[in-house]
């Protein structure tokens, strides 16, 4: 299958700051999650994909086109930017209609398509009100509506779930799923794994401007579970607990901070650790007061993989 996005040795610098560094990636049609912590280079890649910027070096093809100022590509592309920027004096309907008209549609068609798109993001009751009165979630959905109103082949969405409440988040994810099922390809960036996980199994991980990993969510989960994890504990008797924990085969080390009484544990198998801990705490009567696994986030995987 021909990739919808192909980056070869793609780099982008901002003066001396590296945004993307020698990125090689191919993305197939369908829904793809672009994951990485803040500052990983996701937005830089997004801006290159939609032709807001040119690469400093390397090449990039989107739907077979070089993106920068490519009008042919823009007819097949929808972009939902990260920034919370809209024309505040316009209503949602006027805004999406305006975007449609810029894409070459006549006023009647543009308005009809804009209305359909806004209904699809559940803004039918608010679409005639000025955007300035919208909540953040409504603004996010308006941006999304303008991205798919012209039924593009590919939608690129930069952190589209930011600022949405759980209900709106569910609705938007459902909409993305529908768009994906209808044959539209999507590239969605996020720094939260579980957001993307509910939408697609295919993810691209980037970190510090480089491709870190590409594959299914299971592959990434495997990476997450196979690397040592740190757990912070507070207990009435941390010494007894530390001694007992060291007897467990999956515990690598324990560190007790004398001044605070905090116990830091490193384990190779977090699930086994959680399974063994209650019995251990009961046996030693160490009185666990709190437990925190600080590196369960995606950042920890990045740090681990980067080494």
């Amino acid at each position: 299958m021909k990739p919808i996005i192909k980056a070869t040795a793609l780099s982008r610098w901002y003066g001396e700051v590296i945004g993307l560094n020698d990125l090689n990636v191919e993305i197939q049609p369908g829904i793809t999650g672009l994951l990485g912590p803040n500052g990983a280079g996701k937005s830089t890649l997004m801006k290159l994909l939609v032709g807001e910027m040119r690469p400093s070096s390397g090449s990039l093809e989107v739907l077979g086109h070089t993106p920068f100022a490519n009008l042919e590509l823009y007819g097949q592309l929808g972009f939902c930017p990260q920034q919370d920027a809209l024309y505040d004096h316009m209503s949602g309907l006027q805004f999406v209609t305006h975007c449609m008209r810029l894409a070459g549609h006549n006023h009647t068609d543009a308005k009809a398509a804009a209305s359909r798109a806004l209904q699809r993001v559940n803004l039918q009751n608010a679409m005639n009100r000025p955007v300035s009165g919208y909540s953040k979630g409504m603004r996010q959905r308006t941006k999304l509506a303008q991205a798919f109103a012209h039924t593009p082949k590919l939608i690129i969405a930069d952190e589209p779930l930011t600022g949405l409440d759980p209900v709106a988040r569910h609705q938007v994810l459902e909409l993305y799923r529908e768009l994906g099922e209808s044959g539209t390809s999507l590239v969605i960036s996020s720094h939260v794994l579980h957001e993307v996980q509910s939408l697609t199994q295919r993810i691209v991980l980037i970190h510090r401007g480089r491709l870190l990993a590409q594959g299914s969510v299971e592959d990434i989960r495997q990476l997450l579970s196979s690397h040592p994890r740190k757990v912070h504990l507070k207990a009435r008797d941390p010494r007894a607990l530390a001694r007992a924990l060291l007897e467990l085969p999956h515990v690598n080390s324990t560190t007790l901070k004398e001044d605070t009484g905090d116990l830091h544990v490193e384990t190779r198998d977090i699930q086994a650790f959680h399974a063994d801990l209650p019995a251990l705490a009961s046996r030693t009567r160490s009185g666990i007061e709190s437990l925190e696994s600080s590196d369960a986030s995606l950042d920890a995987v990045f740090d681990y993989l980067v080494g």
Partner: protein
Amino acid sequence: MLHFIQSAWLLSRLQMRSLLFSRRIIFCLLLAIAPIVIAWFAGAHQHATETVPFIGMFLVLQVIAPLISLTVGSSVVTEELENRTITYIFTRPTDRAAFFVGRLLASTVVSSILIALSSLGVIWAATYPREGMANLTRVRKRRGANEMVEIVRDLPDDLAVGLLTAATVAAVMYTLISAGLGVFFKRAMILSLAYTFAVEGFLANIPGSTQKLSVQFYLRSLFSDSHEMEASILSKIPILSEATAYTSSEALARLGVAYLICLLIGAFGIRKRQYLMTS
């Protein structure tokens, strides 16, 4: 081509609406009123044929017209950039040049109307017939007592038309200069001000042919060609008396060529330039 015109028109309307409800327009209105107020007070004591050339030349053409045009023109590109709404335009199948041309058109209309109204206001204020003492001025006689004479309120039509034409052309030119600088530089307003009041101010006011490199030179040509320069008070200023090298039509033709070149550079530049927006 049709899509280009439609897009330019759409973006022009958007810019017009945005300008008319912006704080810039209040600042520009205040600027436009300033010469009218000055002409009103000056007109109470001076002949309109002296007030209008002076205020027209030194205030409207050299200060107010550039300031209004630069304020309005600098919004052509930078406003969309600062609001970060440019993304919605630049990721559509719309020629980026249409964005520049459309927004420039709206800005030019707004600045031209403001400056033309300001010029008309100056003419009106200088020629407005006042009652009583305001209509008279005290003239000192060499011998005998001073006497009061009536101020002549008439203004030759060609002088009024000359000011109106030169002011409108100034609006068109300076709006483009500011918009064009906005295509290539972030601080379009500051650069435009520096260009207009430092570079042009220098070029236009030193004797010699370097004056021809400034817009001001052609505006002076337009203005001074419109009335009897030899009889005008402006003829007493050496720099201005040299500014009659071109007739109105020659000055307009040269400015027209310069305008087209700048327009093409702006339209070409916006197609090629990358605009980095921080998220």
